[in-house]
């Protein structure tokens, strides 16, 4: 019976995913093995050339570059977001939902609106520069907008609440006595954090990191607006294949590549976070 239960909890979601994700996506991704027609469209003729093309160093470079930006954004977001989630979780319990609410509220405006607000802040004639001028600074300020930094700021900003939410979940009910036990054994707050709280909340951190990473690597609005279109994320590349170049087979091949790599990373992450958080298979069943 304990065997049947998880299945029927999962069935609705799995059915949903099968109908509205697995089947449609397989149909599209299968195109990776066919040829692009001269004017776009698909010629149903088996080929591995699209797959082969993915391994061109150019795409590897783009992949690494966007993974670098996404990784940096995810790392920064995780640091800030975890700290904020930790702070929220250490506030009186009845305040916590309100704090969470206000942490996500800005993100119920609109992505473009927020991104433009950053443009207003960061541009050469923008608020930050004006402010610096107003307080008497008249040196040259480095170009902030249309740089990688701006892209990272934009990504961190927009995905920060997701990290806060992901980290808050496991932090919300940590047993305080475990924290106390560590203090009692001579650990400072910081050491306790590093050796006890942090490892126990690795699942939340990993989840938050994954959120920012996958959302960033597929983002094209922020690189376009805050990066001045000078940085190409892998998501952008895929988008271009499907829409601009009308090259679905290659878009599908790139997508498969991206999905495969991310799956690999995620499996690693699950594995690592389970090790770190002390989760283990509770028993070795004999079946």
């Amino acid at each position, binding site marked *: 019976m304990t065997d049947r239960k998880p299945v029927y909890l999962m069935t609705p979601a799995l059915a949903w995913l099968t109908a509205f994700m697995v089947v449609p996506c397989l149909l599209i991704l299968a195109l990776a093995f066919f040829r692009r027609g001269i004017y776009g469209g698909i010629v149903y003729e088996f080929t591995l050339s699209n797959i082969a093309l993915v391994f061109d160093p150019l795409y590897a470079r783009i992949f690494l570059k966007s993974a670098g930006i996404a990784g940096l954004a995810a790392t920064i977001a995780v640091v800030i977001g975890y700290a904020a989630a930790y702070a929220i979780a250490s506030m009186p319990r009845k305040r916590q939902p309100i704090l969470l609410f206000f942490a996500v509220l800005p993100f119920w405006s609109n992505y473009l609106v927020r991104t433009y607000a950053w443009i207003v802040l960061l541009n050469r004639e923008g608020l930050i520069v004006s402010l610096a001028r107003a307080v008497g600074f008249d040196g040259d300020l480095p170009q902030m907008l249309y740089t990688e930094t701006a892209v990272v700021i934009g990504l961190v900003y927009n995905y920060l609440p997701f990290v806060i939410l992901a980290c808050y979940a496991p932090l919300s009910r940590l047993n305080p006595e475990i924290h106390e036990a560590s203090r009692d054994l001579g650990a400072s707050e910081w050491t306790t954090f590093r050796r006890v709280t942090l490892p126990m909340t690795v699942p939340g951190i990993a989840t938050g990191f994954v959120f920012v990473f996958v959302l960033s690597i597929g983002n094209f609005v922020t690189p376009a607006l805050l990066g*001045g*279109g*000078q940085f*190409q994320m892998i998501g952008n*590349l895929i988008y271009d294949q*499907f*829409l601009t170049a009308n090259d679905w087979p290659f878009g599908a091949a790139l997508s498969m590549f991206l999905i495969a790599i991310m799956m690999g990373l995620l499996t690693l992450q699950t594995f690592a976070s389970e090790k770190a958080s002390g989760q283990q298979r509770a028993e070795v069943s004999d079946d």
Partner: protein
Amino acid sequence: DDLVISNWDGYMAPEALDSFTEATGNDAELVLHGTNEEIMGKLIASNGRGYDVVFVSSPFAEVLQNMGLAEQLDHERLPNLANLYPEATELAHDPGNQYSVPYTWGTTGLCYRSDLVDGQPDSWQDLLNPSDELQGKTTMLATDRWLLGAGFLAKGYSVNETDPDKLADVRNLLIEAKESLLAYDDTTFYAKLVSGEAELVHAWDGWCNYGIAENADIEYVIPREGSDLWVDTMVILKGSENKEAAYEFVNYVLDADNHRWASENILYKVPNQAAMEALDPALIEQFPNLGMTPDEMMAFEQLRNVGDAQRAYSRVVSEIKAAN
């Protein structure tokens, strides 16, 4: 069912649909697309269903035709085609308006702040290899065909060039140009000019006019190496279930008054002789590029669907964007 029309935002007179309804009795709905690519993707994935008339740039109209999604036009039902300039009925992408009707046309050139830029820029090199004062104050269009177009024109190649060596030349040129660029931008470049963030931008003529409207110091110039001739078209979809009304709509747009009215609202040239002749001269004064004649424009090559070479184009653009 309502007639469903997809167009860019602000690319028709705001009341155009109401007056169409009033004039023809057909209910119509306007939905918006941000880019050619969006609406193309949507049409291809849905096999051309759901829309009756779409506004797309000419290479995309060609794709719709190639994929068999565009309606073969019955000229009988479009009497107002007669209002078009003769040149506009023989455009390279669709001679004889078999499946598309030109809505607007124009050139791609340089839009700049005459009060900030020294002298009058007159070459693509002024954009690609700007003077010291202009370093970091230029933008280029981000869409692949127009981005490459600037390079092709600077090099004196065809804007539809497919020779790999020439493509490589252009790639190198554009990668170098990237150094001095503020950003790639094909949506808000005029605003950057207005705010002064940018001083010289790669622009479509009509869109430069939006800048001129806000700041009279902004000017438009076609570099001496030339421009492309871009054409935005109306396509009736084969899958349309309201063909009657769709024809009526296209015909309605081609009406001299209506098309003029559109031009005055959106500040783009329309290929409608009757409309252009009736255009308010004051407008041409304020926005000189509205005064360009079909004759002058026909000197320029149109962007065409390049078939398999599209793969190479995409790759080159990726190389440019990935360069640092």
